[in-house]
């Protein structure tokens, strides 16, 4: 329940708690945002805005509605998508790379100094194509199960089972 206390403190405008949560999630948010905007500087900028927004609207988070991480990731996706819709962004990025997160992870050099980097690289290399799309849509793009089922033309039950198996694999890879 340590995380819950941390989030509570954050909601009470405790800067230390804010910094800890930032440390836990900033890379994840930047990764999700980057996967959408595909520009390092813009990703950084959007990621900062996301945490500023989170701090300013901390009251609006409720544990009953979902995980804090999930709340943050929702803000991040929305902010990133908003960014891609902005005129300035459209002008500078005519052709977005259509690669999945998998390609991003595989080409990351900065991951080498991270403990889990090897596990995750191994994971995505081995990752079956059927997993790539599901993870991409559900975690990086924020599709609902219904939206993902329509996008991939699969029954919702299949999405659930497939996703579970893919995440199971990931867990074995990074958590041992």
């Amino acid at each position, binding site marked *: 329940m340590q995380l819950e206390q941390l989030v509570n403190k954050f909601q009470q405008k*405790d*800067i*230390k708690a804010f*910094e800890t949560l*930032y*440390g*836990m999630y*900033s*890379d*994840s*948010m*930047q*990764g*999700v945002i*980057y996967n959408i905007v595909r520009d390092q500087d813009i*990703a*950084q900028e959007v*990621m*900062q805005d996301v945490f*500023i927004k989170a*701090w*300013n609207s901390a009251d609006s988070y409720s544990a*009953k*509605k*979902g*995980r804090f*991480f*999930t*709340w943050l*990731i*929702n803000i991040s996706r929305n902010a990133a998508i908003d960014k891609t819709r902005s005129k300035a962004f459209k002008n500078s990025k005519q052709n977005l790379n259509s690669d999945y*997160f998998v390609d*991003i*992870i595989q080409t*990351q050099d*900065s*991951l080498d100094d*991270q403990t*889990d*980097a090897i596990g*995750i*690289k191994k994971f*995505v290399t081995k990752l079956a194509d059927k997993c790539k799309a599901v993870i991409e849509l*559900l*975690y*990086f793009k*924020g*599709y*609902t*199960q219904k939206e*993902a089922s329509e996008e991939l033309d699969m029954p919702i039950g299949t*999405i*659930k*089972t497939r*996703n*579970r198996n893919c*995440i199971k694999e*990931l*867990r074995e890879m990074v*958590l041992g």
Partner: protein
Amino acid sequence: MTKEEYIESGLLELYVAGALSDKENQEVYAAMQKYPEVLQEVLDIETAIVKLTAAASPKPSKFLFNTIKEKLGLKSDGAKVVMLDKPKSNWMKYSGWAAAIILGAGLLWQFNTNGDLETQLQTVEVKKDVLEAEIEAAKTNLREANAFIKTIQNRDILTVPLGGQAVSPSSYAQVYWDKKTNTVYLDASGLPEPPEGKVYQFWSLTLNPLTPTDMGVIENFSGDENKIFKIENPNDSQAFGITLEPEGGSPGPTLEQLYTLGVVENAS
């Protein structure tokens, strides 16, 4: 659903993704509260997703926190953050005491000030009374002066100069007699201040034989500014005199102390 069914359903993975409906989210949350195994499963899924998504980050991001703090106008120094947090109670305590002391001092000051103000108010009220009295006196003086001017402007007025006598040759006085109203105005400004214990007494005289009639002592000679006194005179006066008498006056004039004397010229 049992806890095993929850874990195997794939709902928990979707829960972390944020892909469930509000209703499903609440159900999962309730199951997490109920079953520690479900909670642990969610935590494990979350950890894996945190790591996966972080792996897609092109650059480290930790160093950007200071920028965020600056943008939010928060203190960038970690030590200051602690200070904000911990000594809060001390700060509250001290500020409370400070407020109490300031309030107490303020009340004391106000009490003293109030006392001072009351004293000042009393002083001012006394001054006001004095001033009102002075104004009243001045008005009276003015009225008298105006009446006097009117009287002496009257051509029916009889003017009787009183000259200094042996005891005080430099003294003089003037009587203005309005026979119609039986009033005299005595201008005694040419008389010296009477010595202590003595008063001037005004006399109406008829000659042959010399008969004095008391017209009263001049009270408050020193206090009267213009030294003009209005006196009733029903007598058929032939002369007027002023003597110096003991306080309270005398039944007859002390002629050795006759200061001024004047005869009514056209006495009929």
